[in-house]
Structures are given as C-alpha cells and as structure tokens.
C-alpha cells in the first residue's frame, strides 16, 4: 500500500484557496449520535464497505468523527505513480473528511500532522500494492470551531471494477484497523506545503 500525508492550507479567500472542510455542511449525518442513519449516506449503497469504515470511524473506540465522504471512479492515469498501476484498467476511490472528537477540530495543524504521521506509520506495513492512502491536513470549520481536519483519500486499482472494489474494501479494512488511539498533539512537521491557489 502506498501511504502518504501532506498539509494543504492557505489562501483564505473563498474559492481560490486550498479546500476547507465545512464539517457541519447541510448534508451532514451525525453517525456519532445515530449510527443507524448510515443508510442515508448514498455512497454506502454504491459501495457498502464504506459503511463499515464510517461506522468504525464514528464508533466508540475511535477518537474521530466524520463529516463528509464521496465515492468515484477516477481515470487510471490520475493515479499513475511509483509501483504502478499501468496495467490497471479500473480505479475506485473514496474520500472521508475526518475531525477529532476532542475540540471538534484540531486546534493546530501540528496536532493534525502528528495524527496523520502516526496513521501513516501504522499503515506502512500493509501489503496491499494496488491500494493508496493519502491523508491531507486542511483547514476546517465545525460550527463556531475553526482549526484543522484531515481528508483521507483511499483508492485501489484492478483489472476490472470488481477487482478494484475488492482491493478498495481491503484498504478500507486496513485503514480502519490502523486508526491511532488518540488525536494527540505532536511535533511539528517539515513537510508543510502552503498553497495559495487551488492548484
């Protein structure tokens, strides 16, 4: 499995900066409070393993909550990279916006970064060569709280959609099994990429 993280913050001008997680967006379904509403998230019907991941991320053992997700089929070329996927003809990808339970958002980007580092370290030993996980620290707003959150992108390739889906399901399982136990503050990073435009 390829795993990586980065920080993508900056701009501050709506529409021309890096994406901002608006956690309590109009379609928000609070799975922490009512996990049985999982069926209202349409993406889970298209890819049921995503439901399992969302329930684990919002479950009693997780230090996180989720605000938004999506599922799509990128072009294989979009995911070309090392080790790759040149022979793959199908790709399936999803993302999930993640925030810490404590404080609703990460107060400092360093906290989010430390959390991502730990998650990446836990995932690095997984043998899923056709899968990729990328964690991106972003600015986040949750009601009155402003700070940082993490968007997790997970993708998998296969010779057909069904095999890509099998691999993505395995990646989701591995991702859920590797959730760090606490969203604790950590040491600052050396990998900050300040983006002022939507490049």
């Amino acid at each position, binding site marked *: 499995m390829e795993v990586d993280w980065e920080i993508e913050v900056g701009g501050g001008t709506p529409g021309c900066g890096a994406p901002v997680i608006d956690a309590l967006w109009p379609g928000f379904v609070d799975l922490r409070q009512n996990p*049985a*509403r999982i069926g209202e998230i349409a993406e889970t019907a298209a890819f049921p393993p995503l*439901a399992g991941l969302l329930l684990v991320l919002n*479950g009693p053992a997780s230090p996180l909550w989720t605000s938004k997700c999506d599922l799509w089929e990128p072009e294989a070329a979009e995911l070309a990279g090392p080790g790759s996927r040149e022979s793959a003809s199908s790709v399936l990808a999803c993302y999930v916006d993640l925030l810490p339970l404590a404080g609703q958002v990460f107060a400092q980007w360093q906290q989010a970064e430390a959390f991502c580092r730990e998650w990446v370290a836990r995932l690095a030993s997984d043998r899923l060569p056709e899968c990729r996980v990328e964690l991106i620290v972003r600015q986040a707003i949750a009601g009155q709280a402003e700070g940082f959150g993490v968007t997790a992108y997970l993708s998998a390739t296969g010779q057909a959609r069904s095999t890509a889906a099998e691999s993505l399901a*395995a990646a989701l*399982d591995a991702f859920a099994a590797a959730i760090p136990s606490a969203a604790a503050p950590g040491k600052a990073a050396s990998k900050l990429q300040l983006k002022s435009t939507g490049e």
Partner: protein
Amino acid sequence: MIPEIHENVAIGDPAPGENSSSPGWFTPFEPRRGLTNGHLQTIVGNYLPRPAFRLSSVSEAVEVDPGDGSRVLCNCHWQAEAERAGRLTVVLVHGLEGSSDSRYIQGIAARAWAAGCNVVRMNMRNCGGTESLTPTLYHSGLSGDVGTVVRHYAGRFNLERVALVGYSMGGNLVLKLAGEWGSRPPLCAVAAVCPATDLAPGSDALHEPLNRPYEWNFLAGLLRRYARKAALFPGIYEPRKKIGPVRSIREFDNKILARYWGFRDADDYYFRAASARVVDRIAVPTLILHAQDDPFIRLLPETRAKLLANPHIAFVETRHGGHCAYLSRDPGNEIHWAEATVLRYLLAQAGPVHGS
C-alpha cells in the same frame, strides 16, 4: 400445525379487506431507511454499535468427545436455582469464526435473559480462544457437539425445555441436530437465522467477486487459527507454510479441513455436513429466517421444497435483511428484528417462561 410463512410482503402487506393470517409472534420485516441492499445490511449489521453486554456468566468447558478429550467452552446465564429447571433454556450457537462473544449472540442472550430464560452461549470447538481445548479443527457437521451440550445441562439441572438458536453456520448445526434427533425431549424448539443449509453453493458464493471481502475475512481467521493449532499440536498439523497457498474457503476445506477430518474432499464434506439432508426429519417447532438478498447463503430449490413441506418448520423468507443483519425501522435496540422475532417465536412455542 405451525403456519407456513413464505414471502414477507404477503404477510406484511395484505390485500385490502384481507386479514393477515400471521401468527402472534410474527411482525413483518421492514428494512431500515436506506438499508435495502443486502451487502449494506450485512456490513452495517456487523459494525453498528450495540449496548454493552453486562450479564455475568458461569463458564464451563464441556467435554464433547471422550475419545480425544475435546471440550467446548460454554458461557452460561442461569436463573435462580429454585426455578431453573422450569425455565426455558436457550442454547445459542454462533457462526463461522464467531464466538460466544459475537455481538449477535450477546444481543439475543440479553433478550432471552431479560425474558426469564436460562441462556447457554456455546463456543464451537476452538472458538472463543479455546484452541487448546481440543486437538481437532471445527466444521459445519459437528451437530453432535451441540447435542452433547444440551444433554449435559439438561441432565445436570433437569431442564424441562431446551431451545436451540443458531446463526449461519451455527444455524446449519442446530438444524442438523434437530433433523437427527427428531422429537426428543427436552428439545422443544429451534430457530436458525440465515442458516448455511446448503454448504457447497454457499462456499462457492463466497468466492464471487462481490463477496470476496467476506471470504477474505473468514479465510484470514481460519488460517490464523490453523497456524495456532499447528503451533499447539505440531504432531498433528503441518506448519502453515507447508500447506501452500489457500485462496478460498473451498480451497481451505479441500486442503485442510477434509484432510484432517477424513473427508474425501470439500464436496464430500459439504454433502455430509449439510443440514439440507435432514431438514425433512425435523419434528419440533422450528423457525428459519432467510433473506433473499443474503450475499452468500444459497438455498437450493430442493432444500426450499423440503422446508416448505415440513409442517414443523416456519420458513420466513424476506426480500431484505442481508446476512444475519435484519436491521429494521424499529427504534433503539429493537432495530434488531431477527433477535426479537426469534425470541417471540421460541416463547410462543415453549409456553410460559415461568413454567413451574
């Protein structure tokens, strides 16, 4: 005669002016909003948080095979001694790679206890961390183990009424035992949720592309368990690495299970262990819940015909429900329709819980 129930919709949505003939224990299954996809029901059912299980229990390793000393671990919840014998005793049997602590087992155990029943949460051989209690592996044909547990507790406490409940593979075991026993007190009722009655098509269904994630999970558990058995009993089992690649449940059954249990091959095992062969001989009230959108349980037409022809069997086939999920529109913990239905059925068949 027990009413035959087939097709949930006919029961739950009678034509105008028509009275439903549903028995009192039955309520139609209406899937939770958005959960009309069998895979989604199955996965959500597996991960949906449940109330913490707080019942205290007494654990005992019951010998099921004096020949090799095999024992199975049972977690028991006994009502007060003075009334124990007269209470309905419910023996719960989990599914493949589950245990007595599987969430659905805990869920129905809590309900049965609250209704006044004695409850025995039985682990199959090796399950629940009990690999050291038996030199053997476990498989879908070991209905005798369930029977031994029933006899053990019925004899010790003079239990008047015992009911069996099995999920998936456990469903096959309790149906197989019921067919083998016919009418034999104190067995008074049986319930099977999504039972794997036809093992060969079920095993092959697990290898279908959409079902591979389930197969991987089962297979990973089975292979880890085999590795532990090989470490515990090196004189019996070859090291895992000498077995070679095992990429499917059928391959596991061919390479490992058939070899160490003396079946000719996986198909021989599937045939001999399937309750489908004996369901026509079931002679106690039996409830079978089967969802048409179960991702990997397959019911052969001839088995369905046997189930429908047996007047002792109430066969409830719903359109939705997934595999052992049955997440309904009911609020709170009542979302678990199968557990509520099974318990109502058992209580209706067994008579008053406070039997003495």
